[in-house]
């Protein structure tokens, strides 16, 4: 994108600031900082196609995970069924607005925005076009990273199930399995994504 930048061949470690020369990496490998050991950059294989495939799968799974029943709880002849959003609703009903917002952000909003952002960036790229505002979109995706906590949420679900298993019958719904698969596809999408796509570094890509 900026082949004219005089410092394009340099890289400074983001954890210790050691200045180094950026070298072309073979696909599927990564470069470590010789001083502090941090991963400096990677060259991912077929980044565009693979990330797009995982993101399309994530889109479908996200819809299933958030619409179908997540699990149901049966006790004394009464059944209580819930979806992922039920926890947010109940926190709101009990007047815990900040907690409701946090759970909503971590389990639904941040993952949804990440998937949407990736689709917005990758689909036009696939057809040889650069979408408008590609850099701000990429920054948003990166910024959302730590606030998308589906895998932590899943662990919370498992602990809740174990806590309740002694007092009631728990039945897992379709959304539970879709959500588990969604964790795998979104993790795969971020591990195949190469930021070289954003900067249009075709030379690093091929």
């Amino acid at each position, binding site marked *: 994108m900026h082949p004219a*930048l005089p410092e394009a061949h340099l*890289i*400074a470690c983001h954890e210790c600031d050691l*200045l180094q020369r950026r070298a072309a990496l073979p696909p599927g490998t990564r470069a470590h900082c010789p001083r*502090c050991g941090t991963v400096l950059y990677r060259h991912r294989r077929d980044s565009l196609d693979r990330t797009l495939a995982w993101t399309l799968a994530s889109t479908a799974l996200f819809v299933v995970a958030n619409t179908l029943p997540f699990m149901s709880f049966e006790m004394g002849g009464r059944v209580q069924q*819930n979806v992922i959003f039920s926890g947010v609703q109940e926190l709101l009903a009990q007047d*815990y607005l900040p907690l409701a917002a946090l759970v909503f952000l971590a389990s639904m909003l941040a993952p949804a925005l990440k998937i949407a952002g990736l689709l917005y960036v990758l689909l036009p790229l696939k057809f040889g076009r650069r979408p408008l505002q590609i850099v701000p979109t990429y920054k948003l995706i990166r910024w959302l990273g730590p606030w998308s906590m589906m895998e*932590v949420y899943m662990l*919370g*679900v498992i602990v809740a199930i174990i806590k309740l298993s002694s007092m009631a019958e728990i039945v897992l719904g379709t959304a539970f399995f879709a959500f588990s698969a969604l964790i795998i596809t979104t993790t795969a999408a971020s591990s195949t994504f190469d930021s070289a796509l954003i900067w249009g570094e075709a030379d690093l890509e091929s």
Partner: protein
Amino acid sequence: MRSAAQLGLTSCHDCGQVSRAMHHADGFVAHCPRCDAPLHLRKPDSIRRTWCLLIAAMILYIPANVLPVMSVEYFGASEPDTILSGVKVLFATGQPAVAILVLFASITVPMLKMLGLAYLLLSVHFKSLWRPRDRTRLYRMIELVGRWSMLDIFMISILIALVKLDAIATISAGPGATSFAGVVILTMVAASSFDPRLIWDQKGLQR
């Protein structure tokens, strides 16, 4: 081995592009030539900002552990649970593996995170030359594990949505949960406002 800053170069926080640091009387006002983000040699005001967030987290840690995070009402009898008593219940009901997991995520991790950050801040303050590589590794670990402490909050949100069978059993959230979530968020933001490159900025480490 020289750092970019020593050579008057700065790398963009957002995209990593290295460029010449432009000096101005009031700090740096230059923008990244590739992505237009404002450039800084180091994260601005890193030490003071991290201390403030860390101290706020430590203060909030007290109500987070003293106040109940949820209460279970079972056939009319209400029983409040704190973070610690929740772990005790898991141990008592014969779930040691889960109890250890929750103990680790909601007590050990936040504690180690706060102590670790305080240690890193002090080590930078006293210009420590001791094991910079391990201190960088400690920082990386603090950044990585922090979010797992949210486990308890998510568990509570699921429990209260499932267990609402009026007369038989009801679970409701408690004020400790808000404080606890606050601790986790504050330590996450504190960790990201700390700049690990400060560890390496000591003269003795530059060759």
